[in-house]
């Protein structure tokens, strides 16, 4: 009995290997370079040979793509100085040696607190480098299905990407539920109510809102197929001009105007006639969502 390996359970390296055509991956500043974090070491925390992120390039369905994959299990995929610099460098490389696309496997809670200032600046630099790659005509596609999801600054970065492929198990947001619960109380957000956490930040609600552009099953094959489809569609970066941003502005203003009682994805699904969305299989959900929208 063999099953497609879970994307969520795979390590960053396994994700890269599972997404790309076999044997095509070339890593830059790989673990042998020992570019570890001096800041973690100074605080007596364990370091990793790749500082929790894999960057390199390979072929996907024959096309050359640049791949960035964060390791969610190492310090929550959080961005420190080296980790952030590797990602930034990868986007800069996308401008100088353009790949067909950048595939960005985000799995991160945001800034690494042990080197918080460096992490915050790194994320800002990543944002600017990402814009530059898009301006150079390279589409950037985020894959969000790891155990840390995409939160904090990396939640913002994910939404700068031209496509966001999520699994139902993936999560996308800004502040983690634990932070909100700690500061605002359990009535505001019960972080232990996992079903609620996913109804607010999980893949299905993000897809419902259009924030995720694709919802796939939690396995490497499904994620790979989604990227292959994006390649096949010849999709480039989503252009942004005054007009497109004004349109986004109008869309978001309409969403903010939703009544204040709307605090749970379930009420949104109820309104859309997708009351049992949480229980649907991915394929059925995608079909039903298309029918109602």
């Amino acid at each position, binding site marked *: 009995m063999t099953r497609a390996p879970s994307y969520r359970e795979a*390590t960053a*390296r396994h994700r890269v290997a599972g997404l790309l055509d076999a044997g095509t991956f070339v890593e830059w500043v*790989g*673990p*042998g370079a020992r570019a570890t974090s001096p800041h973690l*070491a100074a605080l*007596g*925390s*364990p*370091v*990793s*040979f*790749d500082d929790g992120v894999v960057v390199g390039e390979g072929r996907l369905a024959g096309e050359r793509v640049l791949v960035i994959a964060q*390791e969610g*299990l*190492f310090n929550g995929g959080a961005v420190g100085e080296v980790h952030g610099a590797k990602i930034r460098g990868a986007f800069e490389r996308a401008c100088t040696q353009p790949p067909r696309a950048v595939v960005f496997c985000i799995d991160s809670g945001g800034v690494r607190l042990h080197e918080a200032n460096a992490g915050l600046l790194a994320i800002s630099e990543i944002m600017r480098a990402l814009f530059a790659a898009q301006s150079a005509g390279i589409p950037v596609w985020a894959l969000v299905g790891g155990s840390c999801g995409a939160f904090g600054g990396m939640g913002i970065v994910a939404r700068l990407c031209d496509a966001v492929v999520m699994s139902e198990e993936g999560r996308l947001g800004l502040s983690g539920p634990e932070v909100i619960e700690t500061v605002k109380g359990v009535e505001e957000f019960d972080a232990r109510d996992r079903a609620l956490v996913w109804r607010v930040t999980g893949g299905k609600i993000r897809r419902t809102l259009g924030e995720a552009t694709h919802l796939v099953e939690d396995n490497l094959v499904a994620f790979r197929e989604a990227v292959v489809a994006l390649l096949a569609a010849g999709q480039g970066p989503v252009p942004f001009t005054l007009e497109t941003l004004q349109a986004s502005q109008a869309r978001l203003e309409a969403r903010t105007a939703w009544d204040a009682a709307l605090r749970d994805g379930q009420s949104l699904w109820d309104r859309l006639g997708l009351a049992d969305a949480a229980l649907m299989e991915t394929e059925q959900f995608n079909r039903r969502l298309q029918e109602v929208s």
Partner: protein
Amino acid sequence: MESFDLELPARAPGAAPGTAALYGVVSSGNLEVLVEAGPSPDRCRFHVETSAHGFTDVWQAVLADFAASHRVGGLSFSIHDAGATPAVVSLRLAQAVQSLEAP
């Protein structure tokens, strides 16, 4: 963090890695091991950095058993450990060697 080095006799030839290969992840109860070519074909080297203090003798016993039961001559293993049990250490090392043999 605590660190130490260890060099042990080992059966040659081990599969020589083309490039450095990393196996495992540094997370609670887990470790990563970087396998590279070492200097001598009949010895293997270990460098261990671990967050669990006071276990050097246990590590040495685990690594000695590993070196005795696998063909790892000519290899160098660098380990970042975040409190893995000996069982996990042995398993990761075995997996790392396997991934070298069958890339």
